[in-house]
């Protein structure tokens, strides 16, 4: 397969600072590549270099295996259309006229637009859902509508390559998906090569086969989405803690940012054991990690949503088989984790016959006169006892032994901070 775009060691400098640093890449014809990277990583500059809006200080760019500098602008515009970030138009044209301008590369200087051109423009506008705007003034429509109009204009060029600089930045979620679905369709049905700079990594992962990750003007990695979107790669660029998982609905990779990794000074050696389950510990777990505590967890059942998060965050856990009653073995492991901790926190997890032994664990901690907090949220409603009163009775007993109930996160974190 031939290359649509290929760059050889291109470098671009603003004064002395290097924005794009010896980037070489190949984009195969018919691929859908997104460029991601933090602010100032050179994404837009790279796109502008490929679009011939900027000229590289060093290196060469080939478009469809031909030197970019050897193209006449009109010929280049037949090959490649660009959707810029800034879609302002200086004076007030009708929307239709703006899209019609996309036919310019196909027309001679004094040639009037013909029926074929009008048909192409109409098609482009219908695909971008802008046909109803055709008689409006371009500066009277909303930013999102204008963005789609500019995309329609690019489509009217009938290019083989479309470059887009954050095409979804001013769109609402509906139109974001609409635009990306449109690009995907063009990519699949008409084999248009798409290169898009996207801020939103999740959209990038969902729509593109290939991702290019940039950081300070250099490529960290480029390749299949699955290979690029790893915690290790993304951490190098974004400098933060994150989780990458498959979204259960779209099956696309999904990045969940957690906290900035820079909070190192907050690290304490304090260990906290968490007794939770059914998702009651998720929020708490993240807060505790952000505050720098070392956290262990258990007993939780495999497959439980708290267990899933713990697994992703590599938390030491005492595990039990799915939907099974807590075994002595698991409880023992949990006791060990709790004993190693400075204190424990129990969430208002629903108590059933399966997990009632966790209360025993809490009782043991209290009897060793170690501190235990009950973080009461009633995430699952008022009723947390499914053991005909046994659970509630046990909790009352625990309270008399010193279990301290707290109902807000703020107060809990506060108390933890004061606790030596």
């Amino acid at each position: 397969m031939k290359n649509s775009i290929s760059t050889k060691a291109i470098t671009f400098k603003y004064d002395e600072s290097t924005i794009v640093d010896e980037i070489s890449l190949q984009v195969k014809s018919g691929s859908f590549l997104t460029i991601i990277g933090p602010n100032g990583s050179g994404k837009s500059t790279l796109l502008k270099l490929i679009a011939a809006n900027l000229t590289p200080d060093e290196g060469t760019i080939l478009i469809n295996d031909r030197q970019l500098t050897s193209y006449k602008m009109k010929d280049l515009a037949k090959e490649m259309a660009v959707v810029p970030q800034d879609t302002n138009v200086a004076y007030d044209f009708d929307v239709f006229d703006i899209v019609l301008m996309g036919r310019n590369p196909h027309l001679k200087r004094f040639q009037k637009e013909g029926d074929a051109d009008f048909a192409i423009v109409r098609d482009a506008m219908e695909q971008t859902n802008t046909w109803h705007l055709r008689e409006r003034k371009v500066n009277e429509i909303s930013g999102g509508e204008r963005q789609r109009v500019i995309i329609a204009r690019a489509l009217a060029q009938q290019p083989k390559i479309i470059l887009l600089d954050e095409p979804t930045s001013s769109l609402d979620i509906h139109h974001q998906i609409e635009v990306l679905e449109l690009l995907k369709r063009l990519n699949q049905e008409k084999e248009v090569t798409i290169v898009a700079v996207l801020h939103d990594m999740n959209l990038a992962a969902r729509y593109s086969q290939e991702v290019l990750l940039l950081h300070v003007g250099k490529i960290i990695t480029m390749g299949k989405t699955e290979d690029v979107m790893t915690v290790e790669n993304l951490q190098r660029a974004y400098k933060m803690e994150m989780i990458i998982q498959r979204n259960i609905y779209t099956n696309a990779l999904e990045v969940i940012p957690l906290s900035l990794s820079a909070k190192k000074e907050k690290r304490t050696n304090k260990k906290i054991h968490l007794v939770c389950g059914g998702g009651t510990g998720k929020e708490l777990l993240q807060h505790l990690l952000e505050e720098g505590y070392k956290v262990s967890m258990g007993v939780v059942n495999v497959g439980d949503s708290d267990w899933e998060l713990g697994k992703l965050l590599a938390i030491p856990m005492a595990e039990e088989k799915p939907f099974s009653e807590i075994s002595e073995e698991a409880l023992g492991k949990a006791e060990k984790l709790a004993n190693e901790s400075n204190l424990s926190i129990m969430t208002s997890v629903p108590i059933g016959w399966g997990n009632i032994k966790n209360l025993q664990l809490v009782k043991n901690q209290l009897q060793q006169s170690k501190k235990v907090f009950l973080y009461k949220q009633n995430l699952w409603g008022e009723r947390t006892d499914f053991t005909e009163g046994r659970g509630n009775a046990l909790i009352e007993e625990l309270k008399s032994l010193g279990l301290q109930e707290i109902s807000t996160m703020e107060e809990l974190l506060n108390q933890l901070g004061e606790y030596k």
Partner: protein
Amino acid sequence: MINKFKHPRNFMILLILLFVVIIGASISGSANITASNSIKIIFSRIPVFGEGIDLTDIPKSHLTIVHNIRLPRILLSFIVGFGLSVVGVALQGLLKNPMADPFIMGTSSGAALGAAIAILLKLNMAFLGVGIISVFAFFGALLATFIVYQLAKVKNKVPVTTLLLGGIAVGQLFTAMMSFIMVISSKDVTSIVYWTMGSFSSRGWNHIQVAVLPIFLGTAIIYIFAKDLNILLLGESTAQNTGVEVEKVKGIILAISALVTAFAVSVSGIIGFVGLIIPHIVRMLVGPDHRILIPASGLLGGIFLIVADTLARTMISPTEIPVGIITALAGGPFFIYLLRNSKRAI
């Protein structure tokens, strides 16, 4: 799209208006000439068509007044108004700046300095039938524009902001030099000031000969780039990606604009406001499409300047008011009125 069917009609209206204004201007003044006589005299000058017109019953003096005094002024003000307006349209589009006018690149101050030097040096001889002051103004205008262009050029590109700032800086510098000339030679102050306010007084066919070809040719070249100017309104990068050779178009339009303006200034002095407000008024009337905007602005600009010049020579006759005063006096309030009433942003 809807507008486009109306345009032939709009142009007809403008052409009829032009005709009426020319006739009106040709009969205004102290000599009492009737409209029908004036029409006859003017038409008799058109080759082939005019040969059959009988002028025997019109007084000889009227023939001379219309033909040698009024008609050249009318045509010259039309040509100058046409050129300045078209250049105004082109520069406002090219620079995407509603403040742009033909003098934005320091043209006026350059021309004024040139004229001031010629007046100071008492250079009264004529060159190609045109006073040496005009020649100095012409080269002053070109020199200023050239300096601004060179200043603004960064790596073969001409960024709009640097161009605008360069225009202001060079303009101030040249104005300062002109003021200095006025200070050291106080007896020339009146002539210099009059020149800088623009006038068509005692201009004749020789001035038209100098200006007509460059101005119409220049505006024709600008018209060739009408479509590119439209696309440039989307921004320079987008224009480039839509197939416009941006820097080439920019270079050509800037050069042509400078030449057209220099020719206009050299025959009329500095007439402000025409090149600024006519494009805006026409844009409000016909929309931003340069394919219509350019010819319509040219026509309306010409008509406007004919009217302004007629007022200039008749209002407090026999004293002539510099036409630049009229354009600002009449154009300013009208423009403000339009701005306040227009829902469309400039």
